């Protein structure tokens, strides 16, 4: 009986054991899973910009765009510009001198240099008022566009030199608009059709969607109008928007854009495509924006290398990275000697009485205080009382105060962990206390001290709250000790808070992660090297 009971008990214990193991495993897997998800998401968003944007003007799948006289035009830009395409509107204002910077179009801080031909090479719809007009033919336009970084040129397609594509970028121009009966985009039942997806557009024109209701519009039948199949728009639109699929059987063919617009304006639920130039300014129809999913590389090398411009909407973060590294460097230069010195005093010199206990409790408490409180202190004391203003000095000192407790605590633990026998050995050789501390104790404690310093760096890099009011938000390179300077975390905060750009915010977050990874990696290597002498160095040699 008794042996039975004990077997039963054994089984029970083993079951408990297995259950405990799986609970522990689940907690570990949960934690690691969540962390991986977060980091993975930030890395993904940092590397890839994936946005839905809606456009009133859509492309027609060809680099050239139609001119009202029946010819074709092309837009060429300098190779340094990062552009996928432009709308006819953009081209108009670029060449017309209304857009002065590429900032909002390509995200680059470059001045627009318009280049175009004179006499009859342009057309009535484009205004070339500010364009540098060229007499001497296409070759000269191409050369001018090739030479200036922000240059944009316009040529008739038939005179574009054949080898030009290697020297300049031919930018596709979106030139088609979707005109709808204004009733389609009116507010009905609290809903309003604001835009449609590219896929929906295809379904509309192939006749698979019969009623606007099914795409979020009013209860109106879809009536499709299209241009003659022979027109360039018609061919291009079918290729791009319909993927070559056939038109809806019910689609009414119109001879030209003007007729089509009239038909759309007078037919409830009508939809049709026309050259944007024809539809723009026509109050009888509405233009239906088309949504497009744009997937682009987000964090590129240029983001590291370029200076931020226009509140961070344009350009990169090079100066901010510089500011951050400088802030970290100065902080470490101040915090490490003071922190380690304090730890040495508390552990090696001070009498271990109630005073030291109180000090230790104090540092422990300070290490857990929210950083905004240090920020407040820095603002009152450094910025205000000392009249240093918001700038590098105030910010660095604030962060130094903030990470000191961490460095002191870890350094203390590391120093306490050095065996007393090392100290005895050194003192017994006639070394002074100072020599013993600097040459043996600190050396043996250095991996632990470095761990504290890394924790401090981690806190400093991620610090935002304490820095906004003490170090400022100027994203230019630091000019001096008192100049305001923006660091990565503050930049990230401002990008999100001001709604400047989520893509840039994620790219900045990615850089922060990379910087912290780099610091940790270097430190691990350093610690490894320091540890080497504290290990057996591989393989004992007994003798």
């Amino acid at each position: 009986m008794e042996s039975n009971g004990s077997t039963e008990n054994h089984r029970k214990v083993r079951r408990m054991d297995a259950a405990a193991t799986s609970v522990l495993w689940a907690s570990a897997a949960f934690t690691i899973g969540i962390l991986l998800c977060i980091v993975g998401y930030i890395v993904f968003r940092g590397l890839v910009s994936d946005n839905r944007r809606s456009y009133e003007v859509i492309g027609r799948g060809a680099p050239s765009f139609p001119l009202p006289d029946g010819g074709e035009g092309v837009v060429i830009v300098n190779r340094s510009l990062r552009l996928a395409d432009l709308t006819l509107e953009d081209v108009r204002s670029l060449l017309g001198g209304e857009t002065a910077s590429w900032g909002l179009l390509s995200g680059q801080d470059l001045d627009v240099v318009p280049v175009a031909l004179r006499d009859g090479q342009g057309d009535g719809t484009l205004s070339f008022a500010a364009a540098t007009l060229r007499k001497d033919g296409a070759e000269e336009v191409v050369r001018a566009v090739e030479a200036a970084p922000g240059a944009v040129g316009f040529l008739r397609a038939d005179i574009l030199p054949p080898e030009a594509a290697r020297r300049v970028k031919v930018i596709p121009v979106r030139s088609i608009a979707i005109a709808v009966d204004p009733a389609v985009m009116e507010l009905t039942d609290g809903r309003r059709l604001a835009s449609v997806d590219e896929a929906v557009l295809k379904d509309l024109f192939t006749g698979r969607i019969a009623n606007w209701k099914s795409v979020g519009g009013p209860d109106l039948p879809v009536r499709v109008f299209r241009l003659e199949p022979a027109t360039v728009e018609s061919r291009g639109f079918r290729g791009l928007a319909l993927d070559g699929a056939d038109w809806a059987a019910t689609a009414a063919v119109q001879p030209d854009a003007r007729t089509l617009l009239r038909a759309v304006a007078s037919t409830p639920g009508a939809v049709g495509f026309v050259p944007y130039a024809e539809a723009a300014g026509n109050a009888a129809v509405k233009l239906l924006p088309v949504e497009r999913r744009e997937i682009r590389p987000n964090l590129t090398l240029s983001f590291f290398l370029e200076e931020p411009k226009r509140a961070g909407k344009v350009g990169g973060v090079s100066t901010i990275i510089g500011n951050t590294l400088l802030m970290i460097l100065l902080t470490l230069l101040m915090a490490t000697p003071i922190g380690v010195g304090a730890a040495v005093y508390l552990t090696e010199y001070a009498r271990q009485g109630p005073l030291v206990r109180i000090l230790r409790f104090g540092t422990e408490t300070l290490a857990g205080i929210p950083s905004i409180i240090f920020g407040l202190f820095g603002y009152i004391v450094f910025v205000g009382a000392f009249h240093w203003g918001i700038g590098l000095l105030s910010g660095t000192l604030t962060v130094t105060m903030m990470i000191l407790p961490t460095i002191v605590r870890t350094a203390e633990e590391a120093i306490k962990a050095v065996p007393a026998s090392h100290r005895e050995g050194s003192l017994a050789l006639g070394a002074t206390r100072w020599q013993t501390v600097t040459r043996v104790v600190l050396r043996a404690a250095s991996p632990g001290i470095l761990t504290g310093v890394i924790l401090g760096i981690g806190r400093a890099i991620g610090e935002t709250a304490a820095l906004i009011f003490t170090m400022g938000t100027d994203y230019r390179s630091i000019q001096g000790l008192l100049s305001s300077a923006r660091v990565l975390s503050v930049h990230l905060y401002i990008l999100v808070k001001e709604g400047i750009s989520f893509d840039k915010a994620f790219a900045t977050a990615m850089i922060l992660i990379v910087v912290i990874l780099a610091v940790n990696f270097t430190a691990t290597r350093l610690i490894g090297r320091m540890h080497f002498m504290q290990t057996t160095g591989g393989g004992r040699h007994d003798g």
Partner: protein
Amino acid sequence: MTDEAKLRIRGLDLHYGEVQALKKVDMDIVPNAVTAFIGPSGCGKTTFLKTLNRMIDLIPGATVTGTVLYDGRDVYGDYDVIELRKRIGMVFQKPNPFPMSIFDNVAYGPRVHGMKGRRSLEETVERSLKRAALWGEVSDRLHKPALGLSGGQQQRLCIARLLAVEPDVLLMDEPSSALDPISTAKIEDLLEELKKLYTIVIVTHNMQQAARISDRTAFFLHGEVVEMRSTEEMFFKPKDKRTEDYISGRFG
């Protein structure tokens, strides 16, 4: 004999707070010989050893009265403690090499006493390791971590580290108690060689070791020196009943 004593201790009392650990110790330690301290645990022999180079100063609450004369000068008088410990070095029970390379361990002492220059340091390190009978085993890996050595090698490294500061007296606190018999034998052989150059004081738990290596032996009990004589006399003709009891194993 007493005239040529290296260390002359008179009326030494030591208190740890209220507790008296050493009572009126008088002793002469002669040069170029091995003096062994034996006695049961807690009898004060290690404490006494530590008073000789003032390592006892590191223990909070320990107060020493009486005199320790080293070459005629009072150790607890105006003697500079740094100079004292350089002259009277110590080897501990457990090998305590620093977490550095073998070379840096041996060069540590000379360096803290201001020796500079690669050549002179190298010469010192080599000479010290040779005197500690370790050179042959480590000469090809001087820049490897000292903690990679075996326990016995580590202890000889600690002896070499001590010899590098050119001391006069070597204090050894059970230097082989943490070692295996082969390593112990090596240390004992080494002491035989070293006593030609240095004055050696060794604390040991192992009476056979005391008998093998020492020239004079002191028996400690309850903080007092019961008896001190030449080792031969001590082991064969102890005068005091308590010494005889201890030597014959009656103390347990």
